[in-house]
């Protein structure tokens, strides 16, 4: 007999256990795996507030300045009195100007100026330059799976114990030079901080957040099955909780039909005729831009548990994801040509950790003659397929399934390296098979 799954209660139980281990546990580290949109940032903010309330000085390590600024703002929203230090670089414009309006935030490029504040936040890169200070009792490492092992090495001397939070399914950190010579070493500097941490401290408690609040009921099962087969998660909302609709009826064109399909089912695949193309495939790029243009023109409105009334899907609630920077640049140019502004267009790496109502994705393998390890990387597809609250439209050339079959992954197996499951090949097939059910052929 099955009981009714209560996402709120399940998530609260997990959070309770995590906070208990962090505040009162005896281990030096706690690891939390969080699927996309499972409330990782909320957890970080809550843990920070509770640690500060318990009188433990805390340092927070995030990976990018945007993440740091975002955390500072969220902390201030929850507790406007809490003394927070924002350690920043000495470049020009080192932090978001919003922080200047927060009375509780002290900003400095020198760690010594921030000594004694309850919480000090900075990027791993900046923390690595902090020397000769009294170590903090507690630290929170955010996006720990995207942090490289060598970055953790540079900062681990600054804290006694730490909470590591991250999403194992997203993109692994990378290095621009080969690091094979260290593959299999427990402290491989190019591996993720968490894999090194756990290799040396296998006894650390590991937790998992079980509910994705971002992904709609239409997306969570697919993303969970394709990318987290051994650590499944659920969506926090049901099929009837979210709805995407348009004020203007479809004109029957490809972009309109795929938008209708995506609004109905949560997924849409706009398939262009098979062709080998350069990376910045002009037709595919234009198709992506057209989909975005039509989405905005047709007055999309999103109904969700967040608000009583349907909310218009404006440009800032839409994102375009690509694999390469030049593709992003090409899409930006195409959007500008169609007069669309304010839509986030970026690569998977830069979209990590962000959330939108609707995403339009240029499939990483679209138009390619080959499938390299880069394009097959599980995390890349996972990021692109898990940024949306309502619907995701994928634009792709026909024939990717055949391409995959012609290019099974051939990465050498390295001794001592944990093989990642599922591999990108398998995950790509799983997603394609699902998308095939929501296919719309391009008809300009």
């Amino acid at each position: 007999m099955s009981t009714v799954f209560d996402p709120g209660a399940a998530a609260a139980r997990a959070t309770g256990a995590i906070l208990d281990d962090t505040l009162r546990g005896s281990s030096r580290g706690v690891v939390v795996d969080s699927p996309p949109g499972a409330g990782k940032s909320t957890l970080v903010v809550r843990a920070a507030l509770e640690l500060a309330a318990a009188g433990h000085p805390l340092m927070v390590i995030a990976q990018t300045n945007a993440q740091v600024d975002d955390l500072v703002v969220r902390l201030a929203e929850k507790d406007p009195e809490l003394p927070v230090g924002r350690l920043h670089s000495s470049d020009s414009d080192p932090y978001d100007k919003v922080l200047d309006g927060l009375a509780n935030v002290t900003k400095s490029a020198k760690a010594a100026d921030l000594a004694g504040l309850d919480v000090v936040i900075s990027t791993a890169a900046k923390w690595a330059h902090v020397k000769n200070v009294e170590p903090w009792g507690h630290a929170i490492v955010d996006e720990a799976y995207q942090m490289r092992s060598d970055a953790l090495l540079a900062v681990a001397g600054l804290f006694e114990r730490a909470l590591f939070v991250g999403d194992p399914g997203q993109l692994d950190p990378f290095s621009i030079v080969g690091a094979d010579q260290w593959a299999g070493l427990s402290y491989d500097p190019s591996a993720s901080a968490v894999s090194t941490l756990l290799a040396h401290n296998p006894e650390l408690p590991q937790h998992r957040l079980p509910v994705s609040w971002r992904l709609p009921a239409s997306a969570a099962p697919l993303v969970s099955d394709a990318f987290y087969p051994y650590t499944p998660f659920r969506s926090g909302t049901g099929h009837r909780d979210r709805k995407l609709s348009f004020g203007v009826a479809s004109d029957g064109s490809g972009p309109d039909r795929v938008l209708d399909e995506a609004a109905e089912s949560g997924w849409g695949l706009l398939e262009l005729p098979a062709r080998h193309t350069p990376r910045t495939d002009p037709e595919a790029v234009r198709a992506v831009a057209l989909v975005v243009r039509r989405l905005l023109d047709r007055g999309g409105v999103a109904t969700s548990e967040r608000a009583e009334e349907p909310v218009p899907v404006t440009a800032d609630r839409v994102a375009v994801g690509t694999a390469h920077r030049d593709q992003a640049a090409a899409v930006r140019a195409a959007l500008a040509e169609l007069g669309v502004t304010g839509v986030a267009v970026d690569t998977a790496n830069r979209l990590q950790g962000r959330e939108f109502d609707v995403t339009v994705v240029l499939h990483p393998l679209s138009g390619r003659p080959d499938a390299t390890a880069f394009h097959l990387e599980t995390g890349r597809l996972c990021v692109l397929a898990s940024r949306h609250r309502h619907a995701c439209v994928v634009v792709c050339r026909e024939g990717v399934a055949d391409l995959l079959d012609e290019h099974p992954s051939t990465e050498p197996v390295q001794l001592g390296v944990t093989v990642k499951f599922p591999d990108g090949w398998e995950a790509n097939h799983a997603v394609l098979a699902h998308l095939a059910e929501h296919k719309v052929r391009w008809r300009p």
Partner: protein
Amino acid sequence: MSLITTLARLEAVDTGRAQPLATVRHRHLTDRPLVLVPLTTAGEAGAPLGALVGTDREAPRLLAVAQPRDRDLRFAFLAELAEAVLPHIEAYADVVEPAERNETDPATGKKTKVEVELCTDAGQLIVPSRAGVEFVRLLGRSMRFRRTAEDDPDTPYPAPARVPLLGRWLTHYGERARVPGSSLLLAATDLLNRHWATGQSSLEDQHLGALLSWIDPPAGSSGAEAALRAELARDSEGQLLCPPAGPATDPDFDNRLLAPAIERYDRARTALASAEDGLAADARLGELSGAEREIRSLLARVMLPTWDAVWRGLDLLRELPEGSRAEDRWTRDRWSFTAHRDRVRSGEPPQPRRDDAVTAAQKLASRETAQAQLEAQEALDDPLVLAGRRLAGEAFLATVTDVEMTYTESKRPSPRPLVTVRTDERPHLGERTKVYRSLEGKPQTAEFVRAEDEPDQDGDVLLVLRILDRMGRGKEPAPGSVPEPGDRIAWTLFEHDQRGGPKLPDPEETPWTHGGPPGADAATRAEQPDPVTPEDLL
């Protein structure tokens, strides 16, 4: 593969000749590189079969192992290799110039300048292929922990005196070769592939003979035909006309020629051992040395074409003038060479088997810096490389049309001139994207402010940039530091210099996340030779 490389490869297919990827040579070549063409025994990891080595293309030194499984013969080969390689390296070790290095005083933590020696040049090693670089590493690994009779009189199989030292040097060269842009140990195929694009796949580009066929095809033949011949053509005995550049040999050579010759050698050796009187022994010794000569000439036959190919490749590369920043990178190779010389001289143990956590992180960081710097320097040295970056939207060439002076709004206003430039290129500029230009060899930074209007009928756009630095300390910019209308300037979206990374903890302070400090036994373990296992004994 970048778009410009794809284009160059398509052109190579079209014209039947390799197309240049560079207009200057991006790697330093010394006047006297030591070329090493090694061969290894099939099926026996790390058993050298022979080598050609030397600095004179007319007079390679032939080293051969008549029976590669014989440990004594292998040691004799390594001893001979040490004799051929070490004098070349050591010749550079004592020619020094005074230099300064920044060092942190451990007592005060202050940075001070220390007078040190820097070798004015360094020994350069060239092997035919990437597999050759790997083989150099393997040789280094197999030799550096060996003990000589002098190290330890009780060691069961003492190595000849200079073998461990050669192992340490080859290990250093092999490790240095992993640093992007370094030139201490280079593979001829890598050098050629950096400078030319062929019409074949990058896998086929690892074949030195085929690669040279594309770059410099024989008269009357296209690169593709010549490359096919280099890969497949065989003589009447079924042997490849262009044997593989090693260290692996062609199986047909192994089976038809080498194996029977080694067998004859083995038989001659057994016969010699069983000779009963002096006269018979003399005759059988003659047979033995005849069998050995045969093996040597077989090996010479398959290595000489590679030897000549490497030198031919070097000739082609020397036709290109050296890029101006390659010298800069060579200086870093010289520092690396000098530092290893100092470690050997001060009696430090051989390089450990595995890097510790801190060393690995340091190496990775310095290689990433070197990679970014190499990419920037090659683009600054070479208009063709820059063209590739321009095509990728990472750089652009523009003509200055207007300069408007503005100042910062502070108590001491600094100049922030707005420069309008015209270009028909489409760099990937976002709001406040930083761009750089080279001003008297130093990078000057500007930020992108806005694009003016739509492209005109020629496809030109006007971009407004704000200059941010290198204008001196005064209110008015120093003369020559602000672009003037009419100037044609190459701007890059990538930085020209790389900042060094943060200082990592000392290995003794490796944090708990990385397993804590290396065990107290780590230092002593590194010095120990490999334990002898049953597999080591024939």
